[in-house]
């Protein structure tokens, strides 16, 4: 029995923002999945379409302006169309999606697809948008002149899709000769000559690309197999210049010339282009002054909302964590395992998880701004600054992506062809404040910039922290471009997508993904670091000499003596004594209340002394005291210094480490609940109470210390994943080492200056 024939494959090809993915979703419905190709980060969607009882496989190729393979995206698209992607069959047809409101430029890609030699169907999308601009396209006439079927559709409304499916099925079944844009005769002669030289194994389309794309992917990949090829290509290009048809200009000239011919009489235009809503909004949002003010206002709203909207959920998570810790302490006897669960896992990981609502709000805002088309305008505004720093606008996209996380941001730099520009972008992208820094900022701002400060101070300070990266990254790029990475910058033209209402599905999808990623991270790497940090702080467990404690029962006034031989028994006894004295103080009034409070404070000081001595003798304590002289100028004690070092695997680890070191569980729960400022977390409360080991009356944390710590984290490179991805992308150890060194140096100097200057004013 013969195996069932494979379904015909149709590849969807189109410029970005032409509604390609919307059309793919409309054709494939729920029958779709996301695929990745080895060695590249390019995602393609696959799905199935049914027409007249037959099933067709659909591949949604990455959005691209051209089939000139310059970046991994374009290389994947070209390989798939040519059937050279391993494991993928050659498509039986290409569905070229064209924006009817921008017909000529969109047909540029279609003319390239026609040269591949696969049947092409043109889907004329956004006809409604074109009509709103007074443009009318005669699809039937265009089809005749172009030599391929042209079907007008509105993908977002599902209009014209039945006809499109029918035409696609016919195109797959029929094989017809394709018309292509004619190139000058000298060019065709050089293509034939080169093809004969390379051999028949290379597709004719790639030979054309080899000649046209100066320094492109094709040239690099073919040169690996044909060593004399670069010289041949150089000579061929020189002959083309002599013949008056030099590359790459000849391509644009030939294609647009042909496009003008085939669209002649097909497009009816208004005499005056009507002003659209997008034009009106853009007049404000892309204005040098107005646009910048709107950008600043939007950022303020985002950061202020992070504090105000997240409060109730943060409070709930914090209370849940405390309740769980109390439950565990009640269930298990005192000992290392109980301490690991409560002081290590629950305090450490719990202190980080409390910030989940803020992370979700940040991602929701990013998704809304991206989906409605605003981010492209923000990139446009920043492009002016980037170009002054010697980088092209392309560099801003990876930098903006780094606001979520530097890893995809650095990977997005692959679209930059110029090696020096790509390297400069990779090296400065980690300066942008990523979502892992948010818990650090949020904790310290919530704890130290609340009482006595105006309501807007929190939002402005948070914006300031993000602005540090936004300002310093281009300046650092400028420095690199003028020293290590000197070179010219290519020019690019940026296309603004039309404004649209954000899709709820897309926003929820993004928020869900980020929530899952954050929790997964908390449950793996952060949990593991917390356990190790706890162990370093808990051990070695040198038991002190046996002591006799004198304890008072505040209710009966009875005094008893307790002989303690173990450290845990010592701490538990003092802890219970503090609780009993505090309860009594709360239940009494006047002088008696004062007396009980004083007793409670004295016992608490005794407890702190015992705990402090144990921490100082621990492995972490000894390491911390060794580095303390280096961090003292920043206003930090050894505990902050160790927390900063422990956060090397991931920045948000510092929050959990501070939770463990400052032992949040010992903070009075009633006091926390009574805190008027709900934005302040239990850990924030603990930090406010922390004092220096050598001077218990002096508080460790103050506004200058908080600012110094935030600035350090805004600038440092405490992220192993970022350094690893830099090594992968640059294929060298030198650049991640350089990035770590320059960012740590910058962070130290920044924190030092901020601390020393701010303590003069605060």
């Amino acid at each position, binding site marked *: 029995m013969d195996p069932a024939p494979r379904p015909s494959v149709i590849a969807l090809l189109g410029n970005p923002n032409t509604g390609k993915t919307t059309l793919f979703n409309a054709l494939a419905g729920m029958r779709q999945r996301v695929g990745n190709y080895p060695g590249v980060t390019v995602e393609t969607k696959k799905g199935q379409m049914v027409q007249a009882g037959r099933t067709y496989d659909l591949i949604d190729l990455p959005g691209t302006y051209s089939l000139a393979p310059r970046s991994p995206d374009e290389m994947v698209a070209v390989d798939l169309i040519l059937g050279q992607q391993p494991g993928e069959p050659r498509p039986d047809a290409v569905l070229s999606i064209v924006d009817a409101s921008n017909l000529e430029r969109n047909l540029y890609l279609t003319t390239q697809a026609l040269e591949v030699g696969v049947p092409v169907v043109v889907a004329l999308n956004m006809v409604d948008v074109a009509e709103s601009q007074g443009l009318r396209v005669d699809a039937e006439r265009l089809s005749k002149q172009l030599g391929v079927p042209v079907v007008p559709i509105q993908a977002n409304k599902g209009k014209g899709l039945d006809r499109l499916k029918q035409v696609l099925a016919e195109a797959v079944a029929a094989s017809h000769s394709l018309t292509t844009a004619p190139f000058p005769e000298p060019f065709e002669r050089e293509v034939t000559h080169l093809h004969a030289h390379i051999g028949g194994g290379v597709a004719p389309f790639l030979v054309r690309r080899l000649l046209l794309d100066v320094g492109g992917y094709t040239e690099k990949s073919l040169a690996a197999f044909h060593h004399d090829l670069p010289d041949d290509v150089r000579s061929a290009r020189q002959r083309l210049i002599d013949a008056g048809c030099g590359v790459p200009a000849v391509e644009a000239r030939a294609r647009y010339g042909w496009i003008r011919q085939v669209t002649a009489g097909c497009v009816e235009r208004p005499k005056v282009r009507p002003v659209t809503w997008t034009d009106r909004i853009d007049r404000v949002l892309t204005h040098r002054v107005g646009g910048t003010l709107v950008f600043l206002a939007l950022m303020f709203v985002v950061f202020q909302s992070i504090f105000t909207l997240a409060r109730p959920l943060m409070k709930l998570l914090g209370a849940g964590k405390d309740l769980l810790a109390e439950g565990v302490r009640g269930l298990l006897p005192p000992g290392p395992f109980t301490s690991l669960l409560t002081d290590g896992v629950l305090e450490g990981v719990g202190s980080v998880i409390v910030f989940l609502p803020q992370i979700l709000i940040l991602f929701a805002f990013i998704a809304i701004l991206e989906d409605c088309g605003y981010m492209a305008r923000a990139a446009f505004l920043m492009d002016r600054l980037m170009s002054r720093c010697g980088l092209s606008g392309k560099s801003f996209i990876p930098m903006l992506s780094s606001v979520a996380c530097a890893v995809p941001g650095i*990977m997005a730099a692959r679209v930059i062809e110029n090696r020096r520009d790509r390297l400069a972008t990779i090296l400065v992208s980690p300066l942008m404040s990523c979502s892992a820094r948010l818990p650090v900022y949020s904790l310290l701002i919530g704890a130290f910039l609340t009482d006595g400060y105006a309501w807007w101070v929190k939002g402005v300070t948070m914006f300031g922290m993000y602005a540090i990266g936004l300002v310093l990254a281009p300046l650092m790029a400028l420095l690199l471009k003028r020293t290590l990475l000197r070179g010219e910058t290519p020019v690019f033209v940026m296309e603004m997508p039309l404004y649209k209402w954000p899709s709820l599905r897309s926003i929820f999808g993004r928020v869900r993904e980020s929530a899952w990623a954050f929790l997964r991270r908390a449950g793996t790497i952060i949990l593991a670091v917390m356990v190790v940090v706890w162990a370093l702080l808990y051990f070695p467990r040198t038991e002190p000499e046996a002591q006799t404690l004198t304890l008072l029962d505040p209710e009966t006034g009875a005094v008893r003596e307790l002989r303690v031989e173990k450290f845990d028994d010592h701490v538990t006894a003092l802890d219970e004594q503090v609780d009993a004295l505090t309860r009594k103080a709360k239940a009494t009034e006047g002088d008696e209340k004062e007396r009980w409070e004083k007793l409670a404070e004295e016992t608490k000081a005794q407890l702190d002394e015992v705990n402090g001595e144990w921490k100082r003798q621990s492995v972490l304590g000894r390491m911390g005291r060794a580095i303390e002289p280096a961090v003292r100028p920043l206003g930090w004690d050894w505990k902050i210094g160790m927390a900063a070092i422990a956060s090397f695997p991931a920045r948000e680890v510092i929050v959990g480490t501070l939770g463990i070191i400052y032992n949040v569980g010992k903070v009075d729960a009633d006091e926390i609940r009574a805190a008027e400022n709900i934005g302040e977390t239990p850990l924030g409360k603990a930090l406010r109470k922390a004092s220096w080991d050598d001077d218990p009356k002096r508080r460790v944390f103050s506004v200058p210390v908080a600012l110094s710590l935030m600035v350090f984290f805004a600038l440092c490179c405490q992220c192993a994943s970022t350094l690893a991805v830099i090594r992968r992308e640059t294929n060298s150890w030198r650049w991640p080492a350089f990035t770590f060194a320059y960012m740590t140096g910058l962070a130290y100097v920044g924190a030092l200056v901020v601390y020393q200057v701010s303590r003069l004013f605060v």
Partner: protein
Amino acid sequence: MDWQLFFVTLIVTFASATLLRRTWRTWSGRGSACGGCAGSSKRTASAQGTFIPVEQLTLRRRGGAS
């Protein structure tokens, strides 16, 4: 060794091994990257703006087409 210390030793050993393994996988390029990057890779880049190679527009500028 009491039971609490026994479990603590097990957990700390496992956590240290996990950290070492993750570090090795990250540096050797086989591990997953930073968790914060969820949903912010290609889609983010394309949503933030797209760039047209300027040579593709050369003729439009000179000839004034479209």
